[in-house]
């Protein structure tokens, strides 16, 4: 590597970037804009689930039970329905996502000490929300049952209501939520968004910058020059990795100051990890560029190979532990997942290099391997 030639390539690339005003603006505006839009819109807190109730019983007990659902902040009560016929249409249109059907003789059975089964119909179009709604309804049922049983006991076993309640509720569960005590989804989401946004633009920009030279023919100057392959590729990479680093700092600021996500770790560690990550993401672009000849192909390929893993396999929306074996393998192959673990640790858990070094090392290996592959496939003597 000749330092002078390397810096010359960097300077040339940088000049090209700064002379394209629209590009320069987009390169620094797109990532923060995406971060803000996603952060505002990707609300994963499950509240205000539109709910309807069919009450076939019309007894005091059924009304009492219905009010537990209606009063819950998790549900947005849309009204009583007369019968089940309207349900398919309402759920199809998304007007309600959950319907509770209280059977006839609900009150009578409970007073007589029999158990009652209540039908819950859920819209499965948003599986996560259906699961959580099911959890809420289950919790309301459990709570209600416990009260029913204790009042039943006080009658059956001749205990006072207080005694009965004490007997039933002697087992207490003290739960402590670690790392995200507020349970706000944006606290969990903001760090992951940094990971996703930083995966979106750098590979694309890097790939296009190389392929553009191929398509325009200006790469012939490089082929004919004394610039070596490593100098050229690294020189191409540098400016985009730099842009990505700067954006990394911006995004951190948005996460911490705008979304007020807690940052418990060290900023230096965050910078180090983001630095390596930037070389990994741009490395993907570099590798793509060594195969393709047209910019369209470069744009489409980088978007397909980077975006999908970043969204699906990074643990942002779908937890890693819930994935099947194939998906687990793919997830571990995607660099985004490792960076995701690092950034989660740095933001929410406040842990650093001493614990997270395996992920950091994985990222480093990625960066190196990607660069070496690109180096191997890039040739100054292309066969036409």
């Amino acid at each position: 590597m000749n330092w002078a030639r390397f810096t010359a390539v960097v300077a040339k690339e940088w000049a090209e970037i700064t002379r394209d005003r629209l590009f320069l603006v987009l390169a620094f505006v797109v990532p923060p804009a995406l971060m803000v839009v996603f952060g505002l819109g990707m609300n994963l807190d499950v509240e205000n689930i539109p709910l309807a109730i069919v009450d076939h019983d019309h007894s005091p007990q059924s009304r009492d039970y219905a009010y537990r659902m209606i009063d819950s902040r998790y549900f947005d009560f849309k009204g009583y329905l007369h019968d089940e016929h309207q349900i398919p249409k309402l759920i199809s249109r998304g007007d309600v996502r959950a319907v509770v059907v209280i059977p006839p003789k609900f009150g009578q059975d409970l007073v007589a000490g029999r158990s009652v089964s209540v039908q819950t119909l859920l819209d499965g179009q948003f599986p996560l929300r259906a699961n959580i709604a099911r959890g809420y309804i289950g919790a309301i049922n459990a709570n209600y049952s416990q009260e029913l049983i204790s009042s039943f006991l006080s009658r059956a076993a001749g205990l006072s209501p207080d005694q009965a309640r004490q007997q039933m509720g002697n087992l207490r569960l003290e739960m402590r939520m670690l790392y995200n005590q507020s349970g706000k989804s944006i606290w969990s989401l903001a760090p992951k968004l940094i990971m996703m946004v930083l995966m979106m633009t750098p590979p694309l920009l890097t790939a296009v910058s190389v392929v553009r030279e191929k398509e325009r023919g200006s790469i012939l100057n490089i082929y004919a020059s004394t610039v070596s392959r490593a100098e050229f590729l690294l020189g191409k990479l540098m400016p985009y990795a730099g842009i990505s680093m700067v954006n990394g700092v911006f995004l951190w600021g948005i996460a911490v100051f705008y979304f007020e996500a807690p940052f418990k770790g060290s900023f230096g560690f965050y910078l180090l990890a983001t630095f390596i990550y930037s070389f990994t993401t741009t490395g993907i672009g570099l590798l793509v560029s060594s195969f393709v000849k047209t910019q369209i192909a470069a744009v489409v390929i980088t978007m397909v190979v980077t975006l999908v893993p970043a969204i699906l396999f990074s643990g942002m929306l779908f937890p890693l532990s819930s994935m099947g074996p194939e998906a687990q393998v793919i997830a571990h192959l995607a660099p985004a997942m490792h960076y995701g673990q690092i950034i989660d640790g740095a933001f929410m858990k406040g842990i650093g290099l001493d614990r997270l070094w395996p992920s950091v090392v994985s990222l480093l290996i990625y960066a190196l391997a990607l660069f070496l592959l690109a180096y191997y496939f890039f040739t100054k003597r292309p066969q036409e």
Partner: protein
Amino acid sequence: MPGNFGEILQHMRVMTLKELLQFRRDIFLLIVVIYAFSIDIYVAGSGIEMELKQAALTVADYDQSPASRDLIYSFRQPQFKFQGMEMNGDRAMDLLDAGKTMLYMEIPADFNEALLAGRPTQIQLLVDTSNSVLGSLATSYAAQIVAGFGIQKAMERLSVGGAMGGSLPMVNSAHRVWFNPNGKDRWFVPINEMLTMITMLSIMLPAAAMVREKERGTVEQLLVSPLTPLEIMLPKVFAMTLVILIGVTLAVFGVLGPVFDIPFRGNMLLFYVLTAIYVFSTAGFGLAISTVVNNLAQVGLMVIMLLSPMLLLSGAFVPPEAMPKILGYLILLSPMHHYIEIVMGIFLKGVGLDVLWPSVAGLLIVGTAVFSFGTWRFRRQFG
């Protein structure tokens, strides 16, 4: 404007063929489009579920009694997985920090005794909620399990269950999940992935096809030819719509049906017609982009800028009722939002125009607006 209709048709045909030929010759582009409609959907759909599964549970059992073992055993698969014992609190914290365990439960030494005597006793549970969604699922399941366990033990102690003939006043729920039995993402994710690919390509391919001409300078040739701006523009959209529809066919009949067993409940013709309308109108975004930018790097950035909010906020991941009000309204402007309702409706719910007409109307209105805007920009620049 050139005179007769036959001539226009001839121009369109030749130009559409030219676009298809150009597409076919870019072997990498061809491969990646096939990949996008087959392997990509397969990968996205296999094994991803948004449900708490195998959440690792580590326990400090200071009691080691039948009751404590019973309780640990109640944290069952598939939601939970017993990971092992760890009495040392510091080491347990390390496990939580490293993400090796998600829940850590401490059972006190007098647990069994207290349960038998009816004395109050307390279980400690630490839950890693760094993923808020999983955290809330785990806490709600755990609370239900422990509450159920408490009731069961109390009933055993008071021997009410036996005395009353096993009957107690309880409310159980029978759940039914519609349109997606078992609440599996196995159906939802692959369909959504296909829609993502359709949207991405229908914006990007026409934009790229146009900007490429600009960048290479061949657009000058086109402009001095007898072609009108519309005759330059429409064939690009036609050709790319055709390419995408072929891709959709591959995805529906090659992946969604055979691999994921997703039933196609609705009308096939309706699906294709509406998909063609969607692809065609979304191409308007691509045309508008192609008038603003000068090179493909800019195209890429603009597409990302436009596409990502459309995808994530289309109502596919987050339903409109959970968004801030303003975004909820903005979403109505995205053609993808209407299109998703249509596809999910036709695919999974098997409904027709009678139910879907609001979405179809939305798609037509927004689609026409988008396409007209693209055409207007295009004619202004190249007219």
